[in-house]
């Protein structure tokens, strides 16, 4: 089985198990402040590193290119409380514009 299939099926299975276990385990087990705190922080760390790696690297090297323009435009749009579709379109359009220059 290819790596892509393994990634597709195993991550789907694990993510479903997490969802399902939430309905099966006693609430007291995870209802501790430190778990709640870490749980709210893990997405922040992962999402931020994904922004950096997906936006600023190519094949294990840090590369500044048209994607950074798209990201900066996205950040400006978000700071003006633009909704999701608008933000994505602006990011794509600005990045593509610089790429096609």
């Amino acid at each position, binding site marked *: 089985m290819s790596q892509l299939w*393994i990634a597709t099926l195993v991550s789907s299975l694990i*993510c479903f198990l997490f969802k399902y*276990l*939430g309905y099966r385990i006693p609430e007291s087990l995870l209802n501790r402040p430190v778990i709640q705190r870490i*749980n709210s922080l893990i997405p922040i*760390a992962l999402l931020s590193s*994904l922004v950096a790696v997906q936006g600023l690297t190519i094949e294990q090297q840090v590369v500044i290119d048209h994607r950074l323009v798209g990201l900066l435009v996205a950040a400006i749009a978000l700071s003006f409380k633009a909704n999701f579709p608008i933000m994505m379109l602006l990011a794509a359009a600005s990045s593509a514009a610089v790429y096609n220059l």
Partner: protein
Amino acid sequence: MAVAIPVGTYGAAFGAASIAAGFSILQTCLLSLLLFSGASQFAVVGVMGSGGSALSAIATGSLLGFRNGLYGLKMAPLLKLKGFRRLIGAQLTIDESTGVAISQEARGDDAARYGFWATGIGVYFFWNLFTLLGALGAGAIGDPAAWGLDAVVPAAFLGLLWPRLTDNKTRLLAISAALLALLLVPIVPAGVPIIATALLAVIFGSRAKR
């Protein structure tokens, strides 16, 4: 219906990004049907697309998907599901359905339950429909960068991250995580820099009281 347009755009972006990362149309649609959690799906295709191993992709996607389990913990006493309906309810337990259910709690349990199911089913439908459309569209456009697709993925992560940056601690964590990941990128295998930053979250979370 209010959720359909953002979900549709985001789903189409996922479909296109997944194809650009090398996944087939079938694999792309299965991720939306079976995994059904946007951030995890983007993480899986992002890590694979940047040359990471399946293990790194699974670890990153799963870490991001863990929060849905805690949503389930919160939804279980409200929904009181058994058997097959519990399987369906669990699959629909994501940011949007849980968020709407919680926001409706003040109007009573029935309103909260309705909010959960209506949102979960609506998002599931539009997310999968637009994943397919995005995947089909991406096959037709050629070079993803010429359409800005390579910027759409990090922008999508930024859009998910932005509302979580509510105070100095979260902003400091976000900046530290981004810097740590960039420092690690040249020296460890692809995918590992992202997982490594989860440790920062554990450190930040177990230390400070606020």
